[in-house]
């Protein structure tokens, strides 16, 4: 599944230039349009298309982990024949944002986020109770990566 061919030149330029540094002004899309020598309508249409096709999940903030609330990476060892069912239970919690299968004995990995430690603990406890499977929690202790967005290679 390769969507890159479907991207317009403007969409690529937006991805190259605006994974960070989105203007924080009353008219951010008009400011971007001016910098890219297109119209505000072009920018908005391109962003809507990128969002509709799932190439971007949103235009907006990325928060520093732990700056706002509580979050943790978590993993479970799930019998393979139960994986879809257990994954559906985990995904049903609004606190869970990412939920992936990974190739390992720990085969289900998710990220859970809540306003407080207590709320987050409660969610993890409920997941254990509903699935009867232990949740291994791996909260971030230190961040070594400066997030500048992802460097795309178009060729």
């Amino acid at each position: 599944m390769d969507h890159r061919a479907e991207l317009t030149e403007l969409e690529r330029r937006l991805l190259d230039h605006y994974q960070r540094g989105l203007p924080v002004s009353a008219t951010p899309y008009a400011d971007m349009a001016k910098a890219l020598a297109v119209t505000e309508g072009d920018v908005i249409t391109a962003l809507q298309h990128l969002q509709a096709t799932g190439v971007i999940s949103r235009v907006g903030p990325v928060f520093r982990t732990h700056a706002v609330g509580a979050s943790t990476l978590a993993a479970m060892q799930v019998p393979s024949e139960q994986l879809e069912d257990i994954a559906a239970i985990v995904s049903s919690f609004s606190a869970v944002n990412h939920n992936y299968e990974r190739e390992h004995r720990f085969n289900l990995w998710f990220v859970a986020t809540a306003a407080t430690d207590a709320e987050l603990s409660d969610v993890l406890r409920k997941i254990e109770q509903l699935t009867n499977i232990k949740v291994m929690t791996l909260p971030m202790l230190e961040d070594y990566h400066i997030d500048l967005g992802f460097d795309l290679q178009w060729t």
Partner: protein
Amino acid sequence: MDMKTTEHFGRSEARVPLSDLDLALIGAIQTGLPLVPRPYAVIAERLGITESNVIEHVEQLQSAGVIKRMGLVVRHRELGYGANAMVVWDVPDADVADLGRCLGRFEFVTLCYRRPRKGPDWPYNLFCMIHGQDREEVQGKVRQIVQCCGLENIPHSVLFSGRRFKQRGAHYRDAASREAQVTA
């Protein structure tokens, strides 16, 4: 996890004190800005404050480091990066910060965190994410990291992702607490 106690998810000193208005604003922008000519005016109306007040607070959250960046948040699979791996390393505790910074400098590493070990089942204390168009490309990048950071004798594991069951941005505040909190 321990059923009796509340676990601490991260260093509490990393938390910047946030006002009710900050929290309401975070709730209103966490899922993305509206794609309309005056996005902050829409948010201002929702929160019952002025557009310039919203912009001012977003700028403050950025300079306080609560917001790491503002921009397009990409989904790698949809961009043709079909091979995505979490690579985990069991490095000596004394070296984890130096090695973490070494890993975090590669342009193809999108996350690099220290996390706790969890006994013999999970001895790894350094995590990074690597995205590639195929597995071979990811494996090549892992070899490059091993060589550049001197990790030849460090046990590690490459966990390629399989099925994606859910992916969206973090929701720190629920929708219900979003609007109620602003009185200003």
